[in-house]
């Protein structure tokens, strides 16, 4: 690698980077600012971690630099600050974007197997193990 080229490229990019990295609009107000009340901020934080960033690959809006994630964070913080509960905000988001948006799947006709599975697995496992031990005692 030739040092002259690095410096030229570095200079070019250092000038271009801030402009290229961001969209033209400034990020929404509460995107990267915490709520003054730590309780509310904790609530908002918990909810943001459960809301999917719809334009990213498998990230929550709490973990993404995408513009849409910033908007969602701002939106959630604003509504929490206005006194809404996380459940209300989640319901609104689900109504608007569908179940795809929440990492905590709700219990409904499509998702119930997810919630029955642990019980069935435990029951089945214990039954299998019990059968094994009972057979042993007869021997």
């Amino acid at each position, binding site marked *: 690698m030739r040092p002259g080229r690095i410096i030229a490229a570095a200079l070019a990019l250092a000038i271009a980077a801030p402009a*290229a990295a961001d969209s033209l609009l400034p990020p929404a107000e509460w995107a990267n600012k915490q709520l003054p009340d730590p309780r509310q901020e904790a609530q908002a934080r918990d909810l943001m971690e459960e809301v999917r960033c719809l334009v990213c690959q498998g990230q929550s809006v709490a*973990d993404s630099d995408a513009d849409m994630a910033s908007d969602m964070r701002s939106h959630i913080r604003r509504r929490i600050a206005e006194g809404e509960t996380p459940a209300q905000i989640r319901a609104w988001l689900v109504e608007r974007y569908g179940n795809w948006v929440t990492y*905590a799947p709700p219990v409904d006709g499509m998702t119930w197997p997810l919630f029955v599975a642990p019980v069935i697995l435990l029951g089945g496992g214990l039954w299998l193990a019990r059968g094994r031990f009972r057979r042993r005692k007869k021997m």
Partner: protein
Amino acid sequence: MIAEAGLAALWFAAALSLLQMGLGWAAVRPGNDNLLRLVRPLAVAQGLLAGISFLALIWLFLETDLSVKLVVANSHSDKPWLYKFAGAWGNHEGSMLLWVTVLAVAGGAVALLERKLRKDTLIGTLAAQATISLGFYAFLLFASNPFERSPVIPIDGQGLNPLLQDPGLAFHPPTLYFGYVGISVAFSFAVGALVTRDVGRDFAQAMRPWVLGAWIFLTLGITAGSYWAYYELGWGGWWFWDPVENASLMPWLAATALLHSVTVLATRDALRAWTVMLAVVAFSMSMIGTFLVRSGILTSVHAFAVDPQRGSFILMLLCLYIGGALALFALRVSTVREGAPFRVVSREGSLVLNNLLLTIILCLVMLGTLYPLLTEAFGTKISVGPPWFNTVSAPFALLLVIFMGMGPLLKWRKDDGNKLLKRVAVPLLLGAATALLIVIVAPDVHLLPMLGLAVAVPVALMSLMPLVGRNLRRTPLIIWGMVAAHFGIAMSLAGMASESAFSKEVLVSARPGQVSEIGPFTVRFDGAEPVAGQNWTAIAGRMTVRRGEGEEFVMLPEARMFSDPVTATSEAAIETHWDGQLYTVIGEPDGQGAWQLRLWWKPAVTLIWFGGSLVAIGGLLALLGRVMRRRSARKSVTDEAEGVPGREALA
């Protein structure tokens, strides 16, 4: 020339594996070892040829040979040499070639080194191994040829995804692949033993080092991958329940269960059918892991359809191997005799419980990973993420960890439950006290992290108890290994719980000179400055940090811009203290002189990866202990000299 040589070596290796498979299956019969003299050198030669082919690919990447399509698509002449080297497997074709190379080399190693296994079973094992590798050779040669030439030679390559330009890439995928392949060797042993009706102690003892080796690599791979995601993604998360992560977790869970059941089989000749079944399951999980990651199905069911040839090829291999293995299991399981009996309260009983819980967690992780794909196929998009995974798996995981602490304190065959409770009373009380303390001092902590800490403390103590009353200098390595691994699990759990219970977060839009407080630190932002690397430029935020009245130090998180391809990444600056990490990230400027800073103080977070490494070290100690014992046993008159009590003391 090099590319053609590599391709030719690959074709020859495939031909040899076809021969090895044909001869092996034709010859394998209980008690027949005539053709072993032929099959052995075939396996070794196949390993050598695959190795040559992989070396050729590395050569092409180091040279940045732009007449090869794969190099053009994934490399660039300005890249640092380490990433040229690691870039050879930082892509689909290269990583599949690495997969099959490791498989072939492992097959060669089995052929050269395995002396314990019955010879007819060894033929079956090598035949199974050749069958697996033949499928992957076919996949490479017909659907993902890494050596394909490009019709036009461009001026330079397109570069490697900057997220992958990290020393982590050089080690993370190979470690996982070593793990996957080790499991496939264990699976081949199981197939061989099923065919020759040889499922018993000797078979288990021959299989165990491979399971242990694979498990060590999987543990290392997962631990390293978690730390890599933690520092590279810039948001301080260390586990996302992302399908790709789950794809590596599932084989680990299955391998952990297999490791423990194979120990029961090798020591007490019990759990025969179950151990073989687990070998099949573990192999299926590593195949599913490969399928999930390599077919593109994860981004979406529809992305899978974009390149249907590759996806369906892997899916076909998956069905063929798993289906074949299950069919063989179903046909032969009746010939596997029941093993030795034991009571519920006994070492075996606790290991059965361990297997039960691990299997349940495995099923849940698989369900949560695949369920969204299923509903999407029916037209409904849902997301299953951390809230679901944490809630359903944590109760089983916490139970599992508690029993992990108690199991090694039990005797084989049968033991007294009351005696055990007396021994663990003090740790259990300490655990309850921890829970109480957290509820009083930090009532805001969520339930799961609180329970995590309340379990980690007593289990850390319990896991050391097998050493009590022993002469430490004469304690065998195998025991040290188990103690280290179990202690590591408790340590890692403590780290996870503490990170989610006590982390502090501060987000500020800071002007130069502005001071922020986070946890025990004061952070002064001194301004942003440009920096340049070989193929990137960056803005570095200079922060002067001080802990209490201690000495000042400087932290320089960077926002990097890579040139080929043009991508922005953020490089967190992380300061490690004995009791946690300060994690800093620089974000966007606001255009009016202030910069977005993200600061986290994560107490005890390092325990997660120290614990994970300790688990792997424990596995390594156990492996060394086993190998050394085998050596010395071979020197002594017979293997039987160690006798039953000796075996049980060590298992």
